[in-house]
C-alpha cells in the first residue's frame, strides 16, 4: 500500500474511527469503575474514622486505668524490677515509644530500660492527679501521651506517662488505609493494565480491519492507477485483471480496450515507420544512383559532341560519324535507364487486381520469352511440374520471373552445361519458389547487394542493374520476400521468393 495513497487514507480514517469509538467506551468504563472504587474507599475510611473517634479514647482511658491499678503495688514497694517487668509486658501489646514511672516527688523512678537513663529526672508538664478519673490524654503529632495516676484506695504511689506511637485504633485505621490503598493501587493497576491491553488489541483490530477494508475499497482504484501508469510508460501489455461491477468495472474495461487499441495503432505506426524508413533509404540510394548513372551517358554525349565539332572543323567526316554514333549509343543507354526507372516506379504499386495464377504456366511463359530474346542458346530451362496456383498480379509476376530467368541465363551462359531450374520447396510452413542456375555463383558478401538498384557485380555483363531490384520490389508488393542463395563462386546461385498462398 503506497504511503499517502488512497488505501492508506482509508486505513487511517477507518482505524482512527474504530479506535476512537472503542477508546471512548473504555475510558468511560474506567472512569465509572474508578469513581465507584473511590466512593467505596471513602465510605470505608469514614466508617472506620467514626468508629475510631467514639472508641479510641475510651479504650485508652481503660488502658490507663488498668495500668494505674496494676503498677500500684510495685511502685508502692519501690519494686523497680517488677515495674520494669510490667512495662515490658505493656510494650508487648501496645506501640509504646516511652514509658515513665514517676514517684510522688515528681522524679522518674524508671523508664523500663536496663540503663534507666531517665532515672531521677524531674518530669515537666501537668500532673494527672487533678484530671477527671486521674488521667489526661493529649495528642502530639502522630503520638498520643497518656498521663495517669498510679493509686489505689485513695493512696497515690506516683504516676505514669505512656507515649504511644499511635493508638490501637490508629494503627488499625492505618493498616486499613494501607490495605485499602494497596487494594486501590492493585485495582487501578489491574484496570490500567486491562485498559492498555484492550487499547492495544483495539488498535490492532482497528488497523487490521482498516487495512482489509481499505484494500477492498481501494484495490480497484490502485490497480487502475498502476495500469494507467504502465500504459503511460509505454507498457501496453500490462494486464488489468479487474472484475469489478459498476462504474469501476466499466472504467477498467474501457482502460483495457484503450490499451488494446493503442497497442494496435502503435504496431501499425511502427510498421509504417519502418516502411517509411526503408523507402527513405531506398529513395536516397535511388537518387544517388540515378544522378550518378544518368550523368555517365551525359558526360559521354558532351565529350563526343565536343570531339565531333573538332573533327567537323578538321573535315574528318569519318571520325565525325564515329563521334555521332557514340553520342547516339549514349542517348540510347540513357533512354533504357529512364525506361527501367519508370518501370521500377510503376512496380511500387500493384495496379492490376490479383488473380489466381498457375505458377508453372507463368514460369514456362517467362522461359520462352527469355529464350526468344537470347536466340539459339545452349541454356536449358527446367520448370518443375508441381508448381502451385498463386494469387498475384499476373503481369508483374511474369515480369519478375522473366528478370530472374534473364539474370540466371546471363550468368549460366559461360558454364559448360548451362542449366536453369524453376521450382519450389517447402521450408517449414513456408512455400519457397526459386530460380536456380549453375553459373559462376555469388560471393556470400554480395548476396544482398545484388538486389540494389543499378548494381552489377560484373560490369561486362549486359543490362542496367535494375532487374533484381525490380524483382524484389514486385515480390514485396505482393507481400512476399526475395533473397539470393549461393555457396560461393563456381557453385551457381539460387534466387528465392515467397508469395502468399492463393
Amino acid at each position, binding site marked *: 500500500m503506497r504511503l499517502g495513497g488512497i488505501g492508506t487514507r482509508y486505513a487511517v480514517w477507518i482505524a482512527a474511527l474504530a479506535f476512537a469509538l472503542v477508546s471512548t467506551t473504555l475510558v468511560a468504563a474506567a472512569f465509572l469503575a474508578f469513581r465507584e472504587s473511590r466512593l467505596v474507599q471513602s465510605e470505608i475510611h469514614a466508617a472506620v474514622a467514626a468508629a475510631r473517634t467514639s472508641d479510641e479514647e475510651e479504650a485508652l482511658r481503660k488502658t490507663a486505668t488498668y495500668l494505674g491499678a496494676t503498677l500500684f503495688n510495685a511502685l508502692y514497694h*519501690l*519494686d*523497680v*524490677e*517488677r515495674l*520494669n517487668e510490667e512495662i515490658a509486658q505493656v510494650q508487648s501489646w501496645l506501640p509504646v515509644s516511652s514509658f515513665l514511672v514517676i*514517684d510522688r516527688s515528681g522524679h522518674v*523512678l524508671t523508664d523500663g530500660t*536496663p*540503663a*534507666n*537513663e*531517665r*532515672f*531521677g529526672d524531674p518530669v515537666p508538664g501537668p500532673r494527672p492527679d487533678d484530671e477527671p478519673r486521674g488521667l489526661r490524654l493529649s495528642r502530639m503529632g502522630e503520638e498520643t501521651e497518656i498521663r495517669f495516676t498510679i493509686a489505689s484506695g485513695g493512696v497515690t504511689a506516683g504516676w505514669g506517662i505512656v507515649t504511644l506511637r499511635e493508638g490501637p485504633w490508629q494503627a488499625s485505621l492505618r493498616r486499613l488505609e494501607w490495605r485499602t490503598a494497596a487494594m486501590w493501587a492493585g485495582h487501578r493497576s489491574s484496570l490500567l493494565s486491562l485498559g492498555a491491553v484492550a487499547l492495544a488489541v483495539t488498535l490492532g483490530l482497528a488497523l487490521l480491519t482498516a487495512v482489509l477494508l481499505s484494500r477492498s475499497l481501494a484495490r480497484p482504484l490502485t490497480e487502475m492507477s498502476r495500469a494507467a501508469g504502465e500504459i503511460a510508460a509505454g507498457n501496453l501489455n500490462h494486464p488489468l485483471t479487474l472484475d469489478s461491477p459498476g462504474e469501476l468495472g466499466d472504467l477498467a474495461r474501457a482502460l483495457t480496450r484503450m490499451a488494446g487499441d493503442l497497442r494496435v495503432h502503435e504496431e501499425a505506426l511502427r510498421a509504417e515507420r519502418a516502411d517509411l524508413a526503408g523507402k527513405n533509404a531506398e529513395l536516397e540510394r535511388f537518387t544517388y544512383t540515378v544522378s550518378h548513372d544518368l550523368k555517365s551517358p551525359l558526360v559521354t554525349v558532351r565529350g563526343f559532341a565536343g570531339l565531333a565539332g573538332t573533327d567537323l572543323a578538321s573535315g574528318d567526316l569519318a571520325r565525325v560519324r564515329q563521334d555521332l554514333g557514340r553520342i547516339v549509343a549514349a542517348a540510347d543507354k540513357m533512354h533504357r535507364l529512364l525506361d527501367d526507372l519508370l518501370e521500377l516506379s510503376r512496380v511500387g504499386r500493384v495496379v492490376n487486381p490479383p488473380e489466381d495464377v498457375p505458377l508453372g504456366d507463368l514460369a514456362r511463359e517467362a522461359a520462352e520469352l527469355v529464350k526468344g530474346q537470347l536466340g539459339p542458346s545452349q541454356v536449358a530451362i527446367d520448370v518443375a511440374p508441381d508448381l502451385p496456383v498463386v494469387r498475384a498480379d499476373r503481369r508483374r509476376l511474369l515480369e519478375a520471373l522473366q528478370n530472374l530467368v534473364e539474370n540466371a541465363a546471363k550468368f549460366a551462359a559461360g558454364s559448360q552445361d548451362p542449366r536453369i531450374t524453376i521450382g519450389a520447396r517447402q521450408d517449414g510452413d513456408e512455400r519457397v519458389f526459386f530460380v536456380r542456375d549453375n553459373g559462376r555463383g555469388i560471393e556470400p558478401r554480395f548476396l544482398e547487394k545484388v538486389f540494389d538498384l543499378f548494381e552489377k557485380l560484373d560490369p561486362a555483363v549486359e543490362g542496367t542493374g535494375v532487374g533484381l531490384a525490380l524483382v524484389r520490389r514486385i515480390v514485396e508488393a505482393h507481400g512476399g520476400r526475395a533473397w539470393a542463395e549461393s555457396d560461393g563462386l563456381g557453385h551457381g546461385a539460387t534466387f528465392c521468393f515467397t508469395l502468399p498462398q492463393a
Partner: protein
Amino acid sequence: MSRPPAALAAVVSAALLAAPGLFAATGAPVPVHLGVIAEEPNEPDRMLKAYGETVARLRERLAPVDVAMGDLVIARDLDDLSQRLVRGDVDFVIETVFPTLVLQERSRSLDPALVAVRRGQRAYRSVFFTRRDAPYRTLADLRGHTLVLQALRSTSAFALPKAEMARAGITVLPSDDPHAGRDDVRYVLAGAEINQAIWVLQGKGDAGAFNEGDWAALPRKVRSQLRVFHETRPIVRGLLSFRAGLAVRVRTKIEEALLGLDGDEAGRAALARASALTRFERLTAADRRELRGWAPILRPSPSR
C-alpha cells in the same frame, strides 16, 4: 500386729533403701535428677526454660555410659529441696555457697564437688554501698541503721554481708525483730538488686550490699548516686554438690559430663541459659578449706 512400731519402721526403711538396687537389678539404669530452687515459687517454668537445655545435653552425654538423666526437679525453696535430697528425689544440685551450706546442714547428705563458674567469675565478693552523700564509711557506722538486702537465700546479697557484719561483731536482725538493740543493724529485703539500690536512694534503707557484678550492672545514673564503702573477701561463685548416697561410678560419670559440657557450642549455649553458667571446675583443696572457714559464719543460727 505384735511387731513393735520401731521394728516396723526399720523393715520399711530397709525395703526403701533396697528399692534402687532392685530396679538396678532389672537392667534399666536408675535415672538421676538435678535439683534447683525456683526463683519465683509460682513460676517453675522459668527454671525449666533456663535448665532444660543443660539437662538435655547431660542426658546425651550420660546415656552412652549407662547413666539415665531424669527430669529436672524444681523445689519451691530450701526446705523443699532439702527434703527432696533426703528422699533421694534429687541427686545433685547447683547453688551458691550459702544455700549449699544450708542444704548440707539440713539434709546431712550433700557433698560439694565442683565450682560453678558464672559470667566468667570463679569467685566473687560482696560490696556495701550507700548514698554518695551519706556519712557511712565503715561497717561500724551502720550500727543502729538499716541495711537493704535482697532475699534470705541469697549468698552475696544476704548471707555474705550478714557474715561479714558478724565478723565485725555486728548483729544483723530483721527490721521488725522486737529483740533488736540500738547497736544492732536491721535489715529489709528488697527482692532484687536494682530495688536495693533504689531503696537506698529513696531512703528506705541506709546502705545495701550485693555482689560486685550486680554493682557493675546498675544503671549508670543510679550507680552515680551511690558509693561503695566496704568489700568482703572473695568466695566461690557457685557449687555443684552431690547427694551423699549416690553411687561413686554414677557420680564420677556425672562429674565428667559436667566438666566437658563447655567443650562444644551447644553445651556452652545450654550453660549460658542456665543462670549464666560458664563452666564447671573441680573443687580444689584450697576451695574446700575456704568453704570450711565460711561454714560456721554463713550457716544461720536456728533462731535467726
